[in-house]
């Protein structure tokens, strides 16, 4: 990321130490790669190339295998999330109650596609499958906050709360 090269590096260093500790504490390294990646994503927020390489080295497996796993599971991401990650539920219940239009409106308002982050790093947009609050469909999550029964014309006012 371009915003501050040096401070990201500093943060990373501490993060890598934490991750190393986590891996060293494992009882069994075989088959642990998914839980290690969960931990790594918890620390760094995403899984860039250098993190994947680090995990591969520590677990003594090829980096291609780590990449294969990261790209396979939708929970893992290689792009940093925005300061306020927005997730629009696209479970079937939300879909039939108009979630697609809400998602389209977010895309238009932020001028990004699903899986992308705005240039200023403020918002990222994701579609996720069922948060289980189907009574509130369509559901939008901004960070931890849940918005229920969202209509496209509410999108602008939701975004305004974070500006």
């Amino acid at each position, binding site marked *: 990321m371009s915003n501050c090269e040096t401070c990201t590096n500093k943060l990373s260093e501490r993060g890598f130490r934490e991750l190393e500790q986590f891996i060293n504490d494992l009882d069994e390294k*075989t*088959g*642990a*790669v*998914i*839980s290690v*990646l*969960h931990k790594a994503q918890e620390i760094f927020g995403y899984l860039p190339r250098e993190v994947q390489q680090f995990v591969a080295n520590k677990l003594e497996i090829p980096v291609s295998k780590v990449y*294969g*796993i990261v790209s*396979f*599971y*939708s*929970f*893992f991401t290689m792009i940093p999330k925005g300061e306020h990650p927005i997730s629009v539920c*696209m*479970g*079937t*219940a*939300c*879909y*039939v*109650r108009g979630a697609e*239009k809400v998602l*389209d*409106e977010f895309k*238009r*308002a932020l001028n990004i596609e699903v899986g992308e982050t705005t240039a200023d790093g403020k918002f990222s947009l994701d579609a*996720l*499958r*069922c*948060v*289980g*609050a*189907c*009574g*509130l*469909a369509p*559901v939008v999550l901004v960070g931890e906050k*849940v918005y*229920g029964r969202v*209509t*496209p*014309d509410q999108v*602008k006012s939701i975004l305004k709360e974070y500006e």
Partner: protein
Amino acid sequence: MSRYKMHVLVCGGTGCVSSNSLQIVDNLKNHIKENGLENDIQVLKTGCFGFCEKGPIVKILPDNTFYVQVKPEDAEIIVKEHLVKGRKVDKLLYKEPSTEKSIDDSKHMEFYKKQMRVALRNCGFIDPDNIEEYIARDGYQALGKALVEMTPELVIEEMKKSGLRGRGGGGFPTGLKWEFARKNKGDQKYVVCNADEGDPGAFMDRSILEGDPHSIVEAMAICGYAIGADKGLVYIRAEYPLAVKRLEKAIKDAREYGLLGKNILDSGFDFDIEIKYGAGAFVCGEETALIHSMEGERGEPTTKPPFPAESGYWGKPTNVNNVETFANVPVILLKGADWFQTIGTEKSKGTKVFALAGKINNVGLIEVPMGTTLREVIFDIGGGIKDGKRFKAVQTGGPSGGCLTEEDLDTPIDFDNLLAKGSMMGSGGMIVMDEDDCMPSVAKFYLEFTEDESCGKCTPCRIGTKRLSELLDKVTKGQATMEDLEMLKVLSETIRDTALCGLGQTAPNPVLSTIETFWDEYVAHVKENRCPAGQCTDLLKYFILEEKCIGCTACSRVCPVEAISGKVKSVHVIDQDKCIKCGACYDKCKFSAIIKK
């Protein structure tokens, strides 16, 4: 000893928590304390009550009062009026839509009348974080009975006799599955609980784990005893943080009470459970893929045989059951297979939990005996279609299932009937659709899902679902030909017959089932470039009717792209070039002056 005279139960399921129910708990406690009643009245959060549409739910016992859509600030009036003065708060009571009368007792609500709670027996009844409440409700008695009074063979016999079939979708007899796992020799065996609920729109497994985690812990231990395994694993979605937290607590408490660990209840039987986190892959619901994922690999399925019962986790005999299946096990052992046999239809015994959602009045989690008809579920329990619209179809079985229509409404729901109708039970998602839902679009929605979730290992699924969703995209844009529709059918059948695993084989079901029942709708898209449901934006235009528009400007204010022009009190016009067909103006107009065609 507790001297509480009243209990206030607040729903702590994900839906209600999203609507701030935990704040209600805090506020209630504070107001109760202010009134000096903290030793008389207990406030606790429970699992899901099921009536998610009207959440957050607060229930007061022993008078069994059921409050709906409670806000944190309502805590004060509940305490002052109901708890202190004994007067029910009418404005928070549920009003039956048909009679508009307040109902103060959940037993008299249409939503609950036809339900029967077996798997959900403790959800919304006990505090899921409190093992003592679970024990008070006969918790771990079934495990005790199995360990002390029954041989493993007898446990399996009882399960076989009960007729319980796997609730994850397949419907395979559970007792038989256990027997295979028992008969296969191995120095180490495993019990796996599949809690990777991936069907978008299904949340029954999550609700059980959130509302009654101990029932799963107990059932897994029973299964371990029956098949000869001392280790259990729960494979759970990382996206379910609340369920994970409650399950972790349940496992920890069970260990402390000696109900997990070495020599349980002095029977010589050891068993412990570990949690494994999924990372978001629908295909991991397939048992071989799930096992590979637990081993830290990509979650790709492998061909069966060998079945996991022979060679599963790390090549050892492994028994995989789904959450809801496990939830039934302790009750069956306690009340007996004969009791369980009396519920349900000839070939599908017991109850089934459904996540009822979509265009229905009462969205929620319901449990009904097998054999209940769709009509009872949708119209009696579900309260009918939202906004008085017409029922069009109900989708069961998620991305692997199909649509059932008006003429199937009186079919008793069970595994075999749903299959015969071209759908399937699946894990229990039930999405209701009304006249505004376009069936090719629904099929496209599911195919985009399976295309996205296809693991890519076999060609029919990897390429086939992609081509299917492209063809469906053409249909919804009015660009398809009749040959394309033919191709949709042929390709669907090919994928069904040739894909490697269950996900691929069932992926075309949403297409086949909607083509079969809504052929005319497909043809209208192709031949007339028309979407009868008025949903496909590419085939739609919005117009303002001159004679009805009063110039209130509501539409132009709501339009996100400024496509509507017109002065106050004069007729407005939509610029078709600018219009993005979002429908915001259509929804906003109070005078029905905007039409789509």
